[in-house]
């Protein structure tokens, strides 16, 4: 049995003194690809902020059996101030390791690393573009590059599908599949339909957490809905599941 990468042991966390999540336990193993789903306001973002160490734990523990993994993080698009005067190149560079943060200029090796990543992902020509002038897909790609530039062991993505077109969604899908070969991924989405084909397992977060060790939530229910994609979520409020369109 592999050693877990991180263990959430009965954590309770939230903002100020108001707990959003209670009794959350989860073990994440190396090369897992967990889809974190649940309704808006259910605590998905709270969960990953706790894992990232950005929120205090009111009770419980987070263990990292082999030490805190190097973590790449893509925040929700709404958390980004798109009018901030910063360029694509600078955003990606901010993801580099920061032991040399006091040097005013980046080393040439690091500059080269950033340039290479921009070229490989098609951002090369946008290098000096301020982020306010990017399309939704280009912006998400830039922030994904920032998360990946330091070659993390754990990649945490919060709603990477926001404001992007179908083409980018497909590209992201392929990209993440490739990355998952040597990286553990936590992917947050309120829309399981788009993420369930990518992920290996699903964690449903709504004030607490239920873990499903597969990416199919429930075959029977899917049959009842006669749904061509596994579009389902559970919660206290009845959900409406829409059939996906046949045409692209």
């Amino acid at each position, binding site marked *: 049995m592999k050693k877990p990468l991180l263990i959430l042991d009965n954590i309770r966390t939230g903002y100020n003194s108001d707990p959003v999540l209670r009794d959350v336990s989860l073990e994440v193993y190396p090369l897992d690809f967990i889809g974190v789903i649940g309704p808006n306001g259910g605590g998905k973002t709270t969960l990953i*902020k706790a894992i*990232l*160490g*950005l929120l205090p734990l009111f009770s419980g523990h987070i263990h990292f059996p082999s030490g805190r993994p190097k*973590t790449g*993080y893509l*925040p929700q698009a709404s*958390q*980004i*101030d798109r*009018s*901030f*005067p*910063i*360029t694509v190149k*600078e*955003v990606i*560079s*901010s*993801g580099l*390791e*920061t032991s040399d*943060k*006091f*040097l*005013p200029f*980046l080393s040439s090796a690091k500059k080269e690393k950033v340039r290479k990543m921009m070229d490989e992902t098609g951002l090369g020509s946008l290098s*000096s573009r*301020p982020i*306010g*002038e990017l399309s939704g897909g280009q912006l998400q790609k830039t922030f994904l590059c*920032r998360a990946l530039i*330091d070659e993390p062991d754990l990649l945490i993505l919060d709603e990477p599908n926001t404001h992007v077109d179908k083409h980018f969604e497909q590209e992201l899908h392929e990209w993440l599949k490739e990355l998952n070969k040597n990286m553990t991924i936590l992917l947050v989405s309120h829309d399981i339909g788009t993420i369930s084909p990518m992920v290996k397992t699903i964690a449903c977060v709504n004030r607490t957490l239920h873990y499903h060790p597969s990416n199919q939530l429930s075959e029977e229910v899917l049959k009842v809905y006669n749904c061509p994609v596994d579009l389902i979520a559970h919660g206290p409020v009845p959900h409406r599941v829409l059939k996906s369109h046949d045409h692209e």
Partner: protein
Amino acid sequence: MTMSELLTILDYQFFRHALAAALLTSVLAAMVGTYIVSRKIVFIGGGITHASFGGIGLAYYMGLNPIMGAAVFGIMTALGGGGNIREDSAIAILWSLGMALGIIFVFMTPGYAPNLMSFLFGSILSVGKTDLYTLAGFSLLTLFIFTVFFRPILYTAFDPEFAKIKGIPVGTYRYMMSVIMALAIVLSIRTVGIILVLSIFTIPQITAMLFTRNFALIIPLAALWGITGSVAGLFAAYYMNIPSGASIIFFLTIQLMVVKLIVTLQRQVQRRSG
């Protein structure tokens, strides 16, 4: 009036001091103002400015250096706020409390307060050598900090949560920048006054951002626009015999409007031909 006639006032030491103060304030405000405008925290700048009047009043009442009093109140405002009160509400309280305290202390001080107007509207034409050295020293320190810590300052301003994950001590940088912001504003009060000081921290930046959205390039460009506007304002103030602080702000604003008009027209021409 010929150019040489225009420049004869350079023979006066007070005018040379005023020019130096305008240059230094423009450069200092270019750096700090770019941080303020980028982070959209102009209201915190407003809070610092007005709260510092309480410090001026207290120092005046106790017979101490008013700028020291202003610095203490300004830093307290920049670092304060928060707690259980929403930040913008806390700033609003400190903003008006500072002004109230200032007025009370000035009222309680025996005799007439001749300096009061100069703190409200600035008195660049009476800037002395000590003021200039303080301003120059602090501008150099700020330039040093912005050069050496440029990346962590930019990263913590843009996305503090991500910076924290990358191991940057975000809290320390935020505190450092709050203190720099407070001191820069307080030292600039001498040049343009409490009521007008915020504009020199914002108008040149807004003018610069018509040309670039790159943080590192906005700073020198804002310094340039700050210098042209404040020097023009200063000459106009002398020859038209109007208050210098108001004249500087007026020229900075006119400059912004003219530049914006030119840039807009140029883009329209480009669009039609392209």
